[in-house]
């Protein structure tokens, strides 16, 4: 650790991993409810479990991004953080707000929660991924602004590198596009149109800047390749990501009451969206092959390469699979969407956050890398989680293809629920893959507690 204030990243990373575990527990509950419909009903209805599952994902990724920024920015800027105390204070505010929200979801009826948190003043709740009560949303904005202030001031007073500027841009974009979550007109089409300005322009827009910056940072550290080389490829990759991804928003505007031309614009540009992901994979492997040093943290290198490959598969390939309008006409809102969502989020964002944690956490704990024993366990967790996720995706894809066939293509279409019974076998296999994923995650957590001969810090 080069700067004392980087230490503030540690609680963020710990919270991220803790919430990740909770997210997967709820994922397992959901998977179970897919096959045993009345599992935990009425204590935890499906809609509540799903809300917790997706919201936890978003919150822990945000914890991860913020932790990453607190770790990276002092080192990039070559100066201490503007205010470590503010960063720590915001950690507790965000953690408590997040915990209260989740407890609210689980203990209070959603309509009651809405009533007591000001949803009648400004209705923003009840939309996918934006289920948070108004108070939580405002809390997110406050935390984000304070965080951005802290980070921006740090960058301004220190060295400005391409990585820190791109990271800042991504984080500012994240905050700005979140503001559209406060816009909720009665007109359903407008509501959906701008809902995607949060969701799509996050995950296929500004988050990609954050992801690319994180990846570039770790690659510089573990490969020792010239910063100049990595930074110019960083620019090229994010340029391609935004050039295709911004108009690519159109692939969500096919069937929600928007004009027909989005089918063309959306198809054409989102067909190009795999290119930046492919470029990122090639880039990551290329840099590792050109490495000038053997970094002792093998696990971090593995996660970095895995991010490239899995982001390309999940976001690139599985996205392309159903992005063309004539295909999407049949697959829209089916298990194929779920398959893509799982692998894309895991491959792009979960893995990149774990990459930075894997790289930074040993250093934060005062060593260059974990002991070989701990690293071996961590690599086991990598393979368990990643392969399990591949299988989750494959089974959901199979379920989706069958679902589309029976429900939408067949001469005599079956009803939704009848089809669900037909594909139950795939849901069972998905749930078992989920269990393996959970085991992998437990192994990952355990790897933090494995002792062994460690290398001293200084790398």
């Amino acid at each position, binding site marked *: 650790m080069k700067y004392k204030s980087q230490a503030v990243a540690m609680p963020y990373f710990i919270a991220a991993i803790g919430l990740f575990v909770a997210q997967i527990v709820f994922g397992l509950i959901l998977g179970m409810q897919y096959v045993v419909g009345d599992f935990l009903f009425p204590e935890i209805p499906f809609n509540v479990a799903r809300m917790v599952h997706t919201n936890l994902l978003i919150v822990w990724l945000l914890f991860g991004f913020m932790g990453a920024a607190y770790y990276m920015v002092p080192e990039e800027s070559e100066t201490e953080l503007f205010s470590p105390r503010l960063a720590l204070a915001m950690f507790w505010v965000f953690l408590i707000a997040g915990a209260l929200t989740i407890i609210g979801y689980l203990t209070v009826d959603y309509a009651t929660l809405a009533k007591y948190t000001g949803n009648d003043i400004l209705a923003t709740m009840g939309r996918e991924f934006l289920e948070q009560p108004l108070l939580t949303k405002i809390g997110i904005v406050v935390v984000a602004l304070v965080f951005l202030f802290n980070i921006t001031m740090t960058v301004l007073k220190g060295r400005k590198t391409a990585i820190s500027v791109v990271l800042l841009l991504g984080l500012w974009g994240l905050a700005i596009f979140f503001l559209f979550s406060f816009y909720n007109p009665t007109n359903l089409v407008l509501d959906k149109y701008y809902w995607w300005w949060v969701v799509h322009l996050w995950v296929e827009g500004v988050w990609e800047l954050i992801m690319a910056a994180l990846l570039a940072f770790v690659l510089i550290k573990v490969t020792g390749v010239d910063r100049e080389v990595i930074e110019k490829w960083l620019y090229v990759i994010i*340029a391609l990501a935004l*050039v*295709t991804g911004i108009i690519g928003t159109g692939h969500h505007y096919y069937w929600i009451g928007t*004009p*027909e031309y989005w089918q063309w614009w959306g*198809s*054409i*540009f989102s067909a190009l969206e795999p*290119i930046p992901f492919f470029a990122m994979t090639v880039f990551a492997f290329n840099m590792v092959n050109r490495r000038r040093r053997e970094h002792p943290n093998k696990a971090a290198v593995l996660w970095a390469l895995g991010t490239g490959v899995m982001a390309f598969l999940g976001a690139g390939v599985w996205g392309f699979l159903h992005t063309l309008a004539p295909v999407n006409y049949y697959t829209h809102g089916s298990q194929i969407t779920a398959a893509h969502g799982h692998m894309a989020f895991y491959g792009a964002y979960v893995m990149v956050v774990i990459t930075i944690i894997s790289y930074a956490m040993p250093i934060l704990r005062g060593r260059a890398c974990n002991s070989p024993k701990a690293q071996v366990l961590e690599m086991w967790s990598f393979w368990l989680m990643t392969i399990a996720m591949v299988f989750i995706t494959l089974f959901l894809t199979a379920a989706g293809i069958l679902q589309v066939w029976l429900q939408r293509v067949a001469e005599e279409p079956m009803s939704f629920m009848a089809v669900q019974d037909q594909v139950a076998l795939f849901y069972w296999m998905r749930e078992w893959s989920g269990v393996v994923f959970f085991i992998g995650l437990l192994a990952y957590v355990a790897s933090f507690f494995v002792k062994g001969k460690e290398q001293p810090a200084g790398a």
Partner: protein
Amino acid sequence: MRAACPPLPAPRTPPTLAGDLAIWIFILAELLAFGVFFIAYAFARANNPELFAAEQLALNRDAGAINTLLLLTASYFVVRAVHAAEAGQSRHGARWLVAALGCAAGFVAIKIGEYAAAFSAGISLSSSTFHMFYLSLTFFHFMHVLLGMVILGALWLNARRGLYGPHNMNGIESGAAYWHMVDLVWLILFPLVYVIR
């Protein structure tokens, strides 16, 4: 292809790309987007050739042709500007860039006239598949012309200050390559959308 062209000078060794690799990657992305758009147009047309032909006939082919001449001429002027810079006459090249900007402005003016006529005739992105493509393709290209003009303007500012020369060609060659790309896609767009039926 090469045989059709006048003799080329002996290639400089080693062969190099004129302009920055970054701009060329961007150009490739743009060419891909345009290419896919063109092909989409052609296949959409194949489903309904009569309707496409009828609406296509109503387009202003004169305006399209004049705009092609303007873009080609602008491109030629840009080539002259690059050659001037290579000869160490950056300020002289600036004048060629002004001429290119003039042609580009002419293109923009004619295009705006065309759009005005189309909108007053009630043509919109939603009025028919052909009009959707006509407006989308030309507007997408139109915005590229505007961006190209911004780039040419920046080149002009630098060229006027005498910045470019045989040892500093990266900027002007990159900008020029982008402008030629804008020209290149129009060379396909014009016959495709305005003429071939």
